Every structure is written in C-alpha cells, then in structure tokens.
C-alpha cells in the first residue's frame, strides 16, 4: 500500500473512503461474492437453534428460518454491490467510494458475512485470528482480506449510530 487511505464522514451522514489503489478496490468489489454462502461457511452463517439437542426443532429452524436469513443476507450483499458500482477515480492512481448513510448497516452486515466466510473457509484458528497471521498463498491473502474488512467495519461502526 503506497498511498494513504482516507476515511471521512460527510455532513449528510455519508462516509467517504478515499485513497484506494487497484488492489484494495478489488477487495472491496469482491466483498459480496466472498460473503456468499458456500458449503464450508454454511454452518457458521446459518447456525442451528439448539446445537442438536432438539433435532426436530433444528430441522424446523433450517426449513422455516433459514430462507428468511438467506434473503436478508442477500439483500445486504446486493446493496454493497450496488454501492460498489459508484467507485470512481480520484486523481491518477487512486479511487474513492462513497457509502450513503442508509447503506452503512448493509455494509457492516456484508462485511461480517465475508469475514465469517473467510474464517470458515480457511479454518483459521483463534490464535491466527488474534495475531493476524495466515500461512502462505491464498491463506495469507484471505487473512489480509479479513483484516482490511475488519478495519472497514470498525470504522463504519464508529460512525454509525444504529445497526
């Protein structure tokens, strides 16, 4: 990362993320896809009601509650995808993204989905997550992604009143 990131809250409540290079823009654009449920992350994104203590209740939960959750998660990812289309150049080598105030909760949720999905997909241990270390190759990139998304989420939480 050679340039400084800019986090700014505007008077209208929107938030501006500036100083993004190509790589960070690609991570942001990947957010909705990274958070999409896949076999490795499904059990984390859609936990059971009783952890198997009441199989019938857990089956009902999967049948009746999960579809609502899926729709809710999809809605958040769609909102992020829509906002990502407004990423635009600023200067010669950097880009900026403006997140409208009303989109902030969707971003916070979509980031959460992506971070949880990455952790489940790469089986990061508590220690790895604590230290931010993630092995080599794709794992290392995934850990960097998690940290970058975490930083974004932390910042959005700090400027957002309600979820």
């Amino acid at each position: 990362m050679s340039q400084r990131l800019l986090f700014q809250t505007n008077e209208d409540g929107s938030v501006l993320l500036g100083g993004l290079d190509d790589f960070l823009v690609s991570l942001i654009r990947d957010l909705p896809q990274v958070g999409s449920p896949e076999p490795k992350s499904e059990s984390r994104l859609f936990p059971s009601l009783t952890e198997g203590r009441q199989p019938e209740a857990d089956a009902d939960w999967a049948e009746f509650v999960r579809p609502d959750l899926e729709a809710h998660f999809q809605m958040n990812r769609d909102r992020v995808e829509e906002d990502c289309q407004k990423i635009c150049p600023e200067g010669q080598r950097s880009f900026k993204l403006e997140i409208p105030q009303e989109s902030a909760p969707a971003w916070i949720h979509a980031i959460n989905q992506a971070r949880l999905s990455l952790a489940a997909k790469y089986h990061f241990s508590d220690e790895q997550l604590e230290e931010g270390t993630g092995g080599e190759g794709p794992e290392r990139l995934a850990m960097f992604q998690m940290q970058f998304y975490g930083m974004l989420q932390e910042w959005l939480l700090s400027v957002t009143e309600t979820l």
Partner: protein
Amino acid sequence: MRNILHILILNEAPPSNGSVALPELDQSVELDQPWNVVVHNDPVNLMNYVVKVFVKIFEFSQAKAEKHMWEVHKKGRSIVWSGNRERGELYVQQLHAYLLLATLEQSV
C-alpha cells in the same frame, strides 16, 4: 410446551395465629423451566459490533451490553435473556440475522 402456573388466591382471612394453610402441591403437574438465549464466543465478530447488536436487540444499556460481551469473550458464553420459548426463538432469530452464534437452551 406450555408453562403451567400455580396461582393461589386466598379469599379467606388468615387464621388468627398468623399462619396460612397452603394446599398441597400436585406433584404430577409439570412446571416448565424458562428458556435461555445463549450467545457463544466467536473469534471473528468485533467486540464493538457485538455490543451494538445487544443494545439494538435487547435494548440493553451500553454498560450491560459490554458486560455480556465480555462474558462471552472470557467465559465463552453468556445468557442474555430468559423467558418463554416463543420469545426466546424470536431473539435467537434476530441474533442469527446479525450473525452472532446464539442458541436456545432450557434452564436446568
């Protein structure tokens, strides 16, 4: 399952010695224990996020939300609400919508 409540209505004045004779409890009647909404530790969710979720869903004060968040973090779990099953399920659903690891457990 439904809760069965024993309500004793004493229409008569207590005896002059001040003691009250209570009817014998029917041992065959099942008294349901309340259900607990339990939030489990998760190394991914940010602490600030968990606090905000507790405030949003349970309308906890900031201090109470932080107390539960730390309990989850340090002990691995925290009972954030107790009561009837239907409402407990609703809370678990809301917590799952915020991607917190939550389950419903009956008190023992």
